């Protein structure tokens, strides 16, 4: 089951510079486990020690933010595309 994953510039150090990688899994968690077996450390940049999606990243499945889908348990199917972007925030507080 092939799922295309777009990696932002800031995380390409984990993918040997690749912008587009492929992985498999029937949920986002399974996909990230699969990717981590080949791209060591990538998972740790996306998921906290407590097992939640890091607030510093956005993950989209077919262009929908997974925070509005099923989070890490979002179901994936063959041909889906996943995009990872840095979340951007800040401010004076």
């Amino acid at each position, binding site marked *: 089951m092939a799922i295309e994953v777009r990696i932002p510039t800031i995380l390409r150090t984990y993918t040997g510079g690749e912008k587009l990688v492929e992985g498999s899994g029937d949920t986002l968690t399974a996909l990230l486990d699969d990717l981590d077996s080949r791209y060591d450390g990538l998972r740790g940049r996306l998921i906290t020690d407590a097992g939640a999606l890091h607030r*510093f990243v956005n993950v989209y499945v077919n262009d929908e933010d997974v925070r509005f889908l099923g989070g890490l348990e979002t179901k994936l199917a063959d041909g889906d595309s996943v995009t990872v972007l840095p979340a951007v925030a*800040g401010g004076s507080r």
Partner: protein
Amino acid sequence: MLEIPQEMVDRVVAHARRDHPDECCGVISAKDGAATRIFEMENAERSPTGFVFDSQEWLRVYRDIDDADEEPLAVYHSHTATEAYPSRTDVRWSATAGFPHWLLVSTRSAERELRSFTIEDGVVTEEEVRVT
């Protein structure tokens, strides 16, 4: 140094004034290092003390930049009651946001206050804004 056209400076300042008392935010893209386009974005937090990019809007903007073979050059935002200097929150987010430049504008007074910074490994360094 951040080199941007006068028109972009004016757009950033106007955006900040318009969204005051809430903070504004947006992105400047570049091609081969030269500033090309400005994207005025929604502050999903609509707050006078913070900003967050709307995740769906950010995806569209990022794609637009990437498809044009451009890259994100600067993130800009306003501080509405304090100086145009990166806060601890800004420094924390800078580590993962992936922008070479942080452009800040303050709307605390009528005076135009616009400054640019690089933030690397938590170290804030002010840089010249060269207006072309």
